[in-house]
């Protein structure tokens, strides 16, 4: 379930990157989600080799726990992305504010 949620997020982010461009550094999210998807895919194969058919019939409790984990992973990735976005400031919002403040202080 975690793999599914992260994989869906990766596809959505890649679609957004392709259609809207990388103005908001959406590629950061793409790299994170695709990297994690590949790594969890290996985990999934290892688990399948161990459990066989049982892997596809998890208990309701396991599924709920994995869904909760998957959503938390997506939120964690979004937090990393927003920090990265604010630090790099691709639209120059903070720089514009800084220069405006500088101009005001020079006039005063």
């Amino acid at each position: 379930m975690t793999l599914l949620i992260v994989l869906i997020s990766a596809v959505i982010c890649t679609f957004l990157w392709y259609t809207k461009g990388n103005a908001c550094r959406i590629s950061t999210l793409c790299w994170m989600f695709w990297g994690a998807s590949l790594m969890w895919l290996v985990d999934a194969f290892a688990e399948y080799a161990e459990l066989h058919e049982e892997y596809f019939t998890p208990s309701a409790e396991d599924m709920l726990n994995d869904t909760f984990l998957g959503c938390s992973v997506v939120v964690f990735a979004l937090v990393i992305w927003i920090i990265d976005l604010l630090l790099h400031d691709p639209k120059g919002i903070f720089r514009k504010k800084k220069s405006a403040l500088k101009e005001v202080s020079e006039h005063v």
Partner: protein
Amino acid sequence: MACFLVPVAEATAITIIRKIAEHNQQKNHSALKVNPEEILSPNKTFLSETHWLTNLLWGGSALLAFEHVWHGEVTPWFPFLTAMREPDATSEMLHEMATNGIGMAVLVTLVWMGMLAVNRIRQKKNISEVQ
């Protein structure tokens, strides 16, 4: 248990190698009095393409590290990995790192190689179309 440490190790090694290579490249360009951006911008060099690999490795490892914290396998206090407390758990962790961890690193590297191959083919196609 700590399988994400193998991709982290690979990402660290590649990042360090790239930083050294970039530093050397810049040194050479400044010795020749050439603007490095003029040389690098038309064709993406192999060095810049390693960014894709490190982005995949660091990004994936960050999310996997979160999962390990979630499951209580990684702690913010010594010895940081709960599996390090007992010898049995340590050997199990090492086995998982040797199987799943190396598998993760290999799969990500293979996917990156595939991306490189596709990129090279597309570049060649574009050049032949222009010519």
